[in-house]
Each structure stands twice: as structure tokens, then as C-alpha cells.
């Protein structure tokens, strides 16, 4: 049986796990005495360290007066600790890579699509040739009457005089 990592147990203790994580941790704890014991240990440790740190800095502080160059009556609009919308949402690395690769594929497809369209248009003309309809021996070659025949991919022939 794989045991739960200490940091996940710590998160669980502090009520910082997601609903899925909470369900998983609780299901594991019902069947694992080692993790249950570890959880109790971590809880005791956290409480004692918190208490020690608070006792250690629990000093009487006389509030020093504000420096004379500060106007204490200055009005300030105050908002408390940041709401989740303030800072950018940090996604896990794997998720960021997946999103990045998907975006790159989409951009690549847009660029590749255009040349494909052009190529298919060009492919309509398979062969184009110029033919002299009737040879006039008294005229030079450049002045002979000609017909342009265009053969497309489906074998249709178009004549242009």
C-alpha cells in the first residue's frame, strides 16, 4: 500500500485540500494505521511549533508614535488580502505544457492550410499546350494562328483561341 505524502497530510490538516483530495485522504486513512498515526503526529507537531513561535514573539509592544512628517489623518481605501482574481492563476507545469502545445498545433494548422489550398488550385491544370491550327507557309512562325488547349485534373480539355 502506498502511503500519503507528508505535505498532503499537512494540507489535509490545514483544511487546504480539494474535495477530491479530501475524499481520497479520508478513504486511505480508514484503512491505514500508519498514515493515521502520522497524521496525529503532524497535528501535534504543528500545534506545538505554532504555540512555541507565538510564545516566543509574544512581546509587549508599545506602539511608537508616527513620525512627525506623516499625516496620520490621510484617508486610505483599504481592501484586505487578495481575492483569487488578483494574482495570476498558476497552473501546474503539465497543464501549461499541454495548453501551449495545443495552441502551437492550432497555429501550425492555420499556416499549413493556406499553402495546401493554393497547391490544390494549381493542380487543376495538369497540362497546357499551344497548337498551330493551320500552317500558312507565307507567314513567320510567330504570326501563325494558334489554339491554347488546357487539360485539367479530370481530363476536361478547354480550347482558347
Amino acid at each position, binding site marked *: 500500500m502506498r502511503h500519503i505524502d*507528508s*505535505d498532503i497530510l499537512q494540507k489535509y490538516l490545514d483544511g487546504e485540500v480539494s474535495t477530491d483530495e479530501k475524499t481520497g485522504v479520508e478513504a486511505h486513512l480508514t484503512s491505514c494505521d500508519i498514515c493515521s498515526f502520522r497524521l496525529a503526529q503532524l497535528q501535534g507537531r504543528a500545534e506545538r511549533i505554532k504555540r512555541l513561535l507565538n510564545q516566543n514573539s509574544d512581546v509587549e*509592544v508599545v506602539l511608537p508614535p508616527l513620525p512627525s512628517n*506623516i499625516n*496620520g489623518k*490621510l484617508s*486610505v*481605501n483599504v481592501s484586505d*488580502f487578495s481575492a483569487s482574481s488578483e494574482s495570476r492563476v498558476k497552473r501546474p507545469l503539465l497543464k501549461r505544457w499541454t495548453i501551449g502545445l495545443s495552441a502551437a498545433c492550432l497555429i501550425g494548422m492555420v499556416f499549413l492550410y493556406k499553402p495546401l489550398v493554393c497547391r490544390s488550385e494549381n493542380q487543376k491544370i495538369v497540362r497546357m499546350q499551344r497548337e498551330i491550327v493551320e500552317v500558312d507557309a507565307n507567314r513567320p512562325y510567330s504570326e501563325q494562328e494558334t489554339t491554347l488547349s488546357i487539360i485539367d485534373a479530370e481530363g476536361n480539355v478547354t480550347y482558347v483561341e
Partner: protein
Amino acid sequence: MLTNPSKRLKTFEDIYAENHARLYRLAIRMVEDRESASDIVQEVFMALYERLNGGTVVLYLNTWLYRVTINKCTDQLNRQKRYRSLEEVKDTPAEESSQDGSEKSQIIQLALGLMKPSERAILSMYSEGFSYKEISDATGIRFTSVSKTLSRSLDKMEQQLKKQGYETY
């Protein structure tokens, strides 16, 4: 705690009176010296006043206050090289670390002295009951990494306290 993002109008005096003790406790845990801690907190409030008086809007005041205090404490520690290596502390008598505290206080200060500034900050905020989101916002540690860093810091603190002869269980 302190999760309501609603806006209120306050005077600078009120902000000073409400936050001074909390910031002082944070600073004293980080720099281990009352005089330096007091100076740092005064600097933080001076910086805040200059910003507000200059017309700069400070969004999420508590986050700002904690972040600036932590940064100033970290700068102070880096300047003075106050966080010592394990070898140095082993050779240091406990009496040297705190002149006016009890034996327990000296042990805690010695243990804290071995922690990195970020670890001191996270432990300090955790002991005050801040949420992981608030810790992340103030310390700059990624939200998803707070539990790992906190767990590691608690382990380290526990080990140091045991080495100093103080059982956390």
C-alpha cells in the same frame, strides 16, 4: 482570516495601529533582533505612506505590508549574514543568540537561526493562522508549493528543536 476583499475607508493612523504589532512579530521572528525589527517596521510604514501620499493605489494592503516586511527582513539577513551554517551554530553557546530571553526562547531562536529567510517567513505566517493563499501572496512562493515548503520547514524546525534538546511531541 482576513479574506474579505471588500473596501473600506480608513485613516493612515488606523492602519498603523492595526498592523504594527503583527508586522513587528513577523520581523522579530525573521531578524531575531528587536531593534532591527522595529526599524524595519517603521521603514515599511514610511514606504507605505510615501506611496499613498504620492497617489499610488496599494491594492490588497495586508498582502503588500507582509510582502514588503518579508523582503526587508530578507535584505537585512542577507546583509548581515545572520543565518548561520549548522557548523557555526553547533559551536555557538546558546546564551549568545538571545540576551534577554528564557532558555526556551533561546532554543527557538537558535532553531529559527538555521532556517532560510523564506522558511522563517512561512513558519511565522503559518503560526499566525494565515491561509496558504495568503502565505503564497505575501511570500511569493507558488500556491501549489506552499504545502511542500511548509511541511519541509516544519520538519526542519522539529529536527533543530530536537537537536537543541527540545521535544516537540
